[in-house]
C-alpha cells in the first residue's frame, strides 16, 4: 500500500475549485510525486457542490480511496459531503470570516484551521487569489515545500504576466505564514519530493494525444460531458499537425462529417457519450457496410437517457456491441488505464484502417475526469506505428479492376480485406453506399452477391482474430483459485484492491480485458478457476454475460441472410444437414 496523502478542495461550482485543485496536483507532480485525482461535480455552472480531490504518494497511485487527510472547505456543505471520508485528525482549512462559514462546526476529533483567505488574498493583490492562500496554508500543514507550488503557479499564470505570478506566490506565502504563526501544532504529514519527472494528464487528453500521434487529421464532435475534453484538447493542437476540428450542429452531423473525411482518405474521429452514440447509431451501419475506417470514441457516463450525466457508469457495452439495425461487424476497444487510452487510440486507428470498419474506443467518466502521473517515456512517440492497410495508388490499382474496367472497393478476397482508393486516384472512381452492393460498390439485391458480401465483411473479423493480439492484461497471483475479470477503467482500483485482499489472506488472479470485440477467449481461464468474479461499473453485468456466453456449450445454428425467407422444404434439409455435421464432429 503506498504511503499516501489525500487532499481535497471543495465549494460551489464557480468557486474556481477545478483550477485550484489542478494547481496543487501539478505542484505535486512537479515535485516528483505520483498523483491520482478525482472530481465530484454536478451538471451546473454555478452553485451546488463541487470538489477536486488529490491522492498522492512517492509510489504509483492508481485509484481513489475513501479517506481524506486535508480538506479546504469553501462552504459548509463541503464538510458535510465528505464526513465519511474525513477521519480523526483530518485537517479542515476554512475562512471563518466568510459569512457562510462563520458558524461552521468542525467535527469532533478533527482539526479546524481558520485562515482569513479573502483578507490575506486582498492584501496580496486581489480577493480572487483566496484559493491560492488556501493552497499555501495546505503546504504548511502537509510540510510540502512551497517552491513546488511556485512552479505550478508559473505554469498556470505565466501567459498572464509576471506581476500576476508574483502576486499569487505572495498570496500562497501569506497562507503558509499565517498557519505557521497562528497554529502551534505538529501535523503528521511530510510530503517528501523526489527527482522523478512526471507528466500529468487525464483520459480524454490521452485519447486526444493518441489521435494526433496516430495521424488523425479530422475531428468532428458535439459537446457532451464527459467527452468534451477530447475536443477541447484537439482544438488548437491538431492544427499544428495539419488537422482540423469542427464543432458540428449535432451528433448526427458530427459522425457524418467524420465519415466524409474518412472517405476522403483522412484518419478521422468523433467522440461523444451514450446519448450521442444513440444518434450516431443511425449512421453506424452505413460506416460498416461501406467499409469505412472510423474511430468512434464513447466516453461513458451514467444512463439511461440523461441519467446522471456527471457520474460514472460502464453501461453502454451492449449498445456498442449490438447497436444499429441489421448485422455489421465492428470492433470495440476499452483501454484499461489512462496511459492505455493513448495506446489504444493509436491501435484503434490502425485496426480501423487495416480492417476497414468502425472501431468503438470506449473510456468512461472516471478516466475522463481523472488526472494521473506517468513517466514521459510512457508516451514514447517513436513507438507509434501507423498501418494504413490495403490502400492502392495509380501503380497498384490495375490489379483490382473488374472485367469491365471498374475499380472494386469491395473485392471478394480470402481474408475479407479489399483495396481502398482515395479520391483523386486515377481510375479509382467508385460508389460507396449503405445499400447492399457488388464488388464495385453498385447496389444489388442478387442473393449470391448478398451472401458473398456479408461473408466477406465477417471474414475480416476472423482475419483480425488470427492476425492481432487480443490478450488481456494479467496481474495478481497466477496460481490463485479465484479469478477476477474486469474490463475498461476498473484496472487501477482492482490492482490496489488485490493488495488489500492479499493482506486479508485472499490471493486472486486478475484478467483486465481491453478488447470487447474481438475479445480473448477466457474459457480455459474460467474453467481452471474455482471461483470467477466479473467486476464492472453497471447493474446488469453486461461483460459478465459475455463471459458466460463464451464459455457455454454451443448450439447448432441454421442461418439464412440472402434476403429470402425460409422455405419449409429447404429448412427441413438445412436442419438435417446441420445435425449430420454435428454427428460427424
Amino acid at each position, binding site marked *: 500500500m503506498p504511503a499516501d496523502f489525500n487532499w481535497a478542495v471543495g465549494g460551489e461550482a464557480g468557486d474556481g475549485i477545478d483550477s485550484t485543485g489542478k494547481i496543487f496536483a501539478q505542484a505535486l507532480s512537479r515535485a516528483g510525486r505520483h498523483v491520482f485525482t478525482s472530481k465530484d461535480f454536478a451538471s451546473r455552472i454555478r452553485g451546488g457542490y463541487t470538489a477536486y480531490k488529490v491522492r498522492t504518494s512517492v509510489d504509483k497511485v492508481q485509484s481513489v480511496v475513501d479517506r481524506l487527510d486535508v480538506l479546504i472547505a469553501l462552504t459548509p456543505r463541503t464538510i458535510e459531503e465528505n464526513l465519511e471520508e474525513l477521519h480523526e485528525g483530518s485537517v479542515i482549512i476554512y475562512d471563518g470570516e466568510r459569512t457562510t462559514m462563520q458558524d461552521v462546526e468542525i467535527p469532533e476529533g478533527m482539526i479546524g484551521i481558520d485562515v482569513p483567505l479573502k483578507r490575506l488574498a486582498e492584501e496580496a493583490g486581489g480577493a480572487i487569489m483566496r484559493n491560492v492562500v488556501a493552497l499555501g496554508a495546505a503546504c504548511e500543514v502537509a510540510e510540502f515545500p512551497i517552491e513546488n507550488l511556485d512552479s505550478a503557479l508559473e505554469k498556470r499564470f505565466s501567459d498572464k504576466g509576471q506581476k500576476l505570478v508574483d502576486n499569487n506566490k505572495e498570496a500562497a506565502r501569506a497562507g503558509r505564514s499565517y498557519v505557521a504563526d497562528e497554529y502551534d501544532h505538529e501535523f503528521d504529514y511530510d510530503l517528501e519530493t523526489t527527482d522523478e519527472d512526471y507528466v500529468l494528464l487525464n483520459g480524454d487528453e490521452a485519447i486526444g494525444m493518441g489521435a494526433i500521434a496516430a495521424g488523425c487529421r479530422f475531428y468532428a464532435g458535439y459537446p457532451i460531458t464527459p467527452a468534451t475534453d477530447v475536443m477541447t484538447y484537439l482544438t488548437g493542437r491538431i492544427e499544428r499537425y495539419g488537422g482540423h476540428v*469542427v464543432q458540428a450542429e449535432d451528433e448526427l452531423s458530427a459522425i457524418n462529417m467524420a465519415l466524409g473525411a474518412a472517405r476522403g482518405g483522412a484518419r478521422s474521429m468523433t467522440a461523444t457519450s451514450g446519448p450521442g452514440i444513440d444518434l450516431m447509431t443511425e449512421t453506424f451501419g452505413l460506416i460498416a457496410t461501406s467499409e469505412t475506417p472510423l474511430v468512434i470514441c464513447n466516453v461513458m457516463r451514467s444512463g439511461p437517457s440523461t441519467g446522471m450525466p456527471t457520474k460514472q457508469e460502464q453501461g453502454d457495452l451492449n449498445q456498442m456491441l449490438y447497436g444499429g439495425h441489421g448485422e455489421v461487424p465492428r470492433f470495440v476497444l476499452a483501454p484499461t488505464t489512462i496511459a492505455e487510452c493513448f495506446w489504444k487510440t493509436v491501435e484503434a486507428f490502425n485496426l480501423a484502417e487495416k480492417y476497414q470498419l468502425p472501431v468503438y474506443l470506449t473510456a468512461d467518466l472516471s478516466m475522463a475526469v481523472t488526472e494521473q502521473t506517468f513517466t514521459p517515456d510512457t508516451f514514447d512517440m517513436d513507438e507509434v506505428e501507423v498501418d494504413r492497410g490495403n490502400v492502392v495508388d495509380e501503380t497498384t490499382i490495375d490489379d483490382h479492376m473488374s472485367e469491365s474496367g471498374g475499380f472494386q472497393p469491395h473485392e471478394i478476397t480470402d481474408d475479407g480485406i479489399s483495396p481502398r482508393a482515395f479520391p483523386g486516384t486515377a481510375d479509382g472512381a467508385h460508389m460507396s453506399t449503405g445499400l447492399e452492393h457488388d464488388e464495385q460498390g453498385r447496389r444489388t439485391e442478387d442473393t449470391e452477391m448478398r451472401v458473398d458480401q456479408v461473408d466477406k465483411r465477417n471474414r475480416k473479423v476472423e482475419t483480425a482474430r488470427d492476425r492481432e493480439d487480443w490478450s488481456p492484461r494479467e496481474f495478481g497471483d497466477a496460481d490463485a483459485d479465484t479469478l477476477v475479470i474486469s474490463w475498461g477503467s476498473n484496472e487501477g482500483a482492482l490492482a490496489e484492491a488485490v493488495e488489500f485482499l492479499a493482506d486479508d489472506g485472499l490471493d486472486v488472479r486478475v484478467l483486465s480485458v481491453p478488447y470487447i470485440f474481438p475479445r480473448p477467449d477466457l474459457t480455459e481461464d474460467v474453467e481452471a478457476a474455482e471461483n470467477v468474479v466479473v467486476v464492472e461499473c453497471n447493474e446488469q453485468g453486461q461483460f459478465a454475460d459475455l463471459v458466460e456466453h463464451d464459455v457455454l456449450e454451443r448450439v447448432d445454428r441454421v442461418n439464412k441472410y440472402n434476403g429470402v425467407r425460409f422455405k419449409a422444404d429447404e429448412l427441413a434439409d438445412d436442419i438435417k444437414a446441420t445435425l449430420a455435421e454435428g454427428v460427424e464432429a
Partner: protein
Amino acid sequence: MSSDIRFTDFKSDKQPTWCPGCGDFGTMNGMMKALAETGNDPDNTFVVAGIGCSGKIGTYMHSYALHGVHGRALPVGTGVKMARPDIEVMVAGGDGDGYSIGAGHFVHAVRRNVDMTYVVMDNRIYGLTKGQASPTSREDFETSTSPEGPKQPPVNPHALALASGATFIAQSFSSDALRHQEIIQKAVEHDGFGFVNVYSPCVTFNDVDTYDYFRDSLVDLKETDHDPSDKQAAKEVIFDDDTEHQGIIYQDEESVPYHERHGVDEDMSVIPDGAPEGATDLVREFY
C-alpha cells in the same frame, strides 16, 4: 486529362430506374455537364447523395461517391471537402432529404460556407414512398397522408438559406436544360457554398407542380433588372409569393469560403508512417 473530359464520362453503366419523364434526368444531365465544363473529371469529383429518388443519383453518375443515410448528405460532403480541399464536392438530394429530415444540417452547412455545391431536386412530393406530402408541398396539396392537404405553409428554402447567411442562392428548372446547366455551373464556380434548388417534376405523384406549370409560370431573373449582389433585392424575390423565379437570386461576390477562414488547405489523406514530427511536444505540455 480534364481537357478531353466529356460529360458522358460522369455517367455510370447503371441505367436509371427513375420513371420515364422524371425531372431528375434533366437535373442530373445538367450536373454532369457543369462538372465537365468546369474542368473536373470523375477521379477528382466526389458526389454525395441522400435517400429517396434523388438519392439514386450517385449510382447513375460515375465519380467517387457516397450514397448515405437519409438527410445527412451535407455533413458528409462537408467532411470530404475539409479532408480534401483538392477534390470537387457536389451534394445532391431531394426536398425531403434537405428540408425535412436534413433541415437542421442545411442551416449549418449554409452558415459554414464550405466550398461545395448543393443541388436539391425539388419535386414537392415524396416519390419513392409513393406520394406523401413533402416540406415544399402546397398547403392544399392532397396526398395519401394529407387527404385535405398538409394545411401548413411550405418551407421557403431560399428564405431559409438567406436567413442562414447564404453566399449563393439559385433556382433552376430541370427541363430548361441550358439554363439549368448554366446555373449549376455558376454554383460550382462560386467561392463557397453554392445552393441551387431545382424544380424537378415528379410525373407520377404530383399533378400540380408539373412541367407545364413551371414552363408557364417561371420568370427568369436574367430577363429582369434583378441584381444578384443586392441582398435586399434578393429578399424581394424570395418573399414574392405570387411569382415562380429561376436564376441566380443572390450571390455574395465577397464570399470567403470556410477553408480560407479556417486555414484548412491540406490534403489530409497524406500522413507519415509514425507519429507526426514534433509529437513529443504534446507530451512535454503535460509536465
